[in-house]
């Protein structure tokens, strides 16, 4: 038994040492919280403030400084704006930009249009950039945010800031001064859900609403012809399969971001039951 306890004590001491070292032997860095959406009031913003917003996105949500830093993983961007005219004439340039502003936007959303020599993906002979499209995937900057970053890069590079502050602010911004998305209690009645998302403004359901089916299809017997999988896709990605005779982009595409998953299931149950 003594031997057993000695071995256990030895193992606990070893684990204790590793834990203590991890807690006290190295700096405890509190990573930034996940980026959250922020409502911006661009209408009241001056160009200086807009450039500052761009700088904040550049250092924060855009994660640009992960690679564009002095370690040399990606080119420094201090002089990029000034180098644009030369790059546009470069035979390796594959884009369609005609000026500094459009080049910078293009370089953010289509990075392989021009790859600075030595910074291409391994094995591609600088034809392909390792940089992701900042308007998609994990970074997902919106148009206003991309414009702010371009304004910042123009300013940083000593070029004239030609970007205009978008009138439609959309959503965007950095990591601080964030607001939590508005919290609400989950709705447990499918009819309340239809009202909450104003479905009846465009769709007729059981003889009510929908302005005679001109804007959206009549859903009164939707469950007879469509299964849950179709309905789910129609709710989350409305343009994926358009019903005959109806136009794209009329139904809001952000229902999936507003509806709780439990509510979605409830609504699907209800719609699938309309036969």
């Amino acid at each position, binding site marked *: 038994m003594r031997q057993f306890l000695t*071995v256990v004590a030895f193992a606990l001491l070893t684990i204790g040492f590793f834990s203590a070292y991890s807690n006290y032997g190295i700096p405890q860095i509190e990573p930034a919280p996940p980026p959250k959406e922020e409502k911006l009031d661009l209408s009241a913003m001056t160009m200086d403030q807009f450039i500052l917003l761009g700088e904040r996105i550049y250092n924060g949500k855009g994660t640009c400084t992960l690679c564009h830093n002095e370690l040399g993983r990606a080119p420094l961007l201090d002089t990029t704006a000034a180098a644009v005219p030369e790059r546009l004439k470069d035979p390796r340039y594959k884009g369609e930009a005609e000026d500094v502003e459009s080049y910078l936007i293009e370089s953010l959303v289509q990075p392989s249009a021009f790859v600075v020599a030595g910074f291409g993906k391994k094995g591609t002979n600088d034809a392909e950039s390792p940089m*992701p499209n900042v308007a998609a995937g994990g970074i997902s900057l919106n148009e206003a945010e991309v414009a702010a970053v371009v304004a910042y890069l123009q300013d940083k590079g000593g070029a004239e800031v030609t970007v205009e502050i978008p009138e439609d602010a959309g959503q965007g911004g950095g990591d601080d001064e964030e607001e939590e998305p508005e919290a609400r209690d989950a709705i447990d009645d499918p009819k309340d859900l239809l009202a909450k998302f104003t479905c009846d403004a465009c769709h007729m359901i059981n003889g009510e609403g929908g302005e005679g089916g001109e804007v959206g299809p009549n859903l009164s017997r939707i469950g007879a012809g469509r299964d849950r*999988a179709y309905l789910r896709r129609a709710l989350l990605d409305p343009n994926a399969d358009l019903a005959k005779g109806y136009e794209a982009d009329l139904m809001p595409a952000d229902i999936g971001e507003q509806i709780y998953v439990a509510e979605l299931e409830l609504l699907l149950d209800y719609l699938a039951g309309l036969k």
Partner: protein
Amino acid sequence: MKDPHPTQRGPASAMIAFVVALAAVFLLAFGPVDALAAEPAAADGVAAGSYAPAPKLTAADYPTIAGINSRVAVWIFAQLHLWFAAFVLAVPIFVFIIEVIGMRTRDKRYDDMAYEFIKVAITAYSLTAILGGGLLFSLILFYPHLFTYLSTIFSASMFYYALLFFAESAVLYVYYYGWHWLQGGFKKWVHLSLGLILNAVGTTLMLLANAWLTFMMSPAGVDAAGVFSGDAWAAIHNFLWNPINIHRFVANIAYGGSIVGAYAAFKFLTATGNQEKAHYDWMGYNANFIAICALLPLPFAGYYLAAEIYAYSQQMGITLMGGIFAWLFIIQAVLIGTLFLSANYYLWCGMGRSDGAKRYTKYIKYIAIVLIGAFLVWFTPHTLVLTNEELKALGGPHHKILGPLGIMPAKNTAVNVMIIFTALSFMFYRRANKVATVSWVNAGNAIQVALFTTGIANIMFLGIYHGYFTNTVYKVAASIPQVLTTVAVIVGSITLDSFIYRGAKEVGPLHWGRIPGRAQYALFLLAVSFTWLMGLMGYIRSGIRQHWHVLDIMRDASPDAFTPTLGYAANVVSVAAILFMAMVIFVFWIAQVSGSKTLPAGYWKG
């Protein structure tokens, strides 16, 4: 009194856990998930595929149950399941190898040792299944929408996983319970074949489970919105699948070796007779040998995995090595250093079994100095976190002299040197009890010295040149030629050694059991460090996705979406490691109890 043929144990609990897990998989894979599954749309004008995009979740979509921290619950279940799974997948691999050695040498000790290994593994197998069920339930309870989404894509592979689990159980039980029945001649070949099937099924199980987790890191077979294309193979064969497969396969063997080594060490310390001590010393040596053999290529497999993570997503790669997780690699350095030092220390102590080892003991201190030096290089951080005063005093975030040791080429050089010197320790151990009789022994030794010297010089040159005289893009270019040099030195010298010592005289019989008790603590240290290191690296592998369940496709909107500090992560790993150790002690105890018999005098009639 020992019973060499223990009866019922693991199967009952394993089957219960398995049936529960299977029911859950079926329920989720073919029950409510049905709504998401592919069904050709009936109506006209509808596209053929009908999978939904990945759900966009809000904090309200994550159930809170009895105040339990969801992330920690899933984390601990997953980690415990993984440790046991690694163990039970690894043990059959080297049991198979040992059985082959036993059949070739006709030395029954190997067969007995293989049987003892598998006996330890079989109870662990039950616990693996139970913990797998625990992981499944905790995922379903705490992250229902993530599980639903993943089971939409992997429902078929989950079904095959369940079937393979049946096959694994059946083969394992025949393999274990039939050990003494299937002996000699053709029957032994049948038994060996069962071992091969057991390994094939076990490895396939691991590959399937790896596909699910690598899909979360490098999703494939889905579009940008997460809509599944219907091609299950594309989702399985995602970008990081094979790098993880290779890394886990090698690591499992090293880990299994270290746990069995700890078992043998404990049995050695509590053994009462010399014969028993000799047996467990021999068992510990073999387990440690297997662990080291797998430990040597492990850094290369890890490097390949990290390189592939970079290739898949530069952002994820930088988060891993240059971002918030960078300091974790300093902790890793401490652990790897511990592994190498304890493995070498055990070898050096083990040289005491031979009377001829004195010829080599004078070199050990130099090997120790090199290993510690290499460890310190690996341990040196690049960027220091400093106060303003400290920053001014130092003149920047990098130390002027030691700072350059913080970059990757220096660390690659250090680990290659560590591996080469560990191989040298092993060669000394092999030579300790032998005297070469070939006429060209001096020339052979000279060639070996030249091989080691030029190899180490080449590794140093590559590291220094690429690390300090090229720009960042080419800094890691040294890694592949460095690895090739290391492999060439090890393979070349061991091959040459086998020729030099062909027909060699033995100094005397090896004295198994003649090893100090403290050497056994090196084996415990190896097992504990390995366990903890796996927990830590598992955290980083999963953590680099940050606030994504499925990278760039399904965002984690739970209250636990933030990345914790390394101290917090280390504490969770420590708690899980202590739980694991308690369970392993239970497994070892059960293995011991199964062999004990009580004769109750006067209890039974007649």
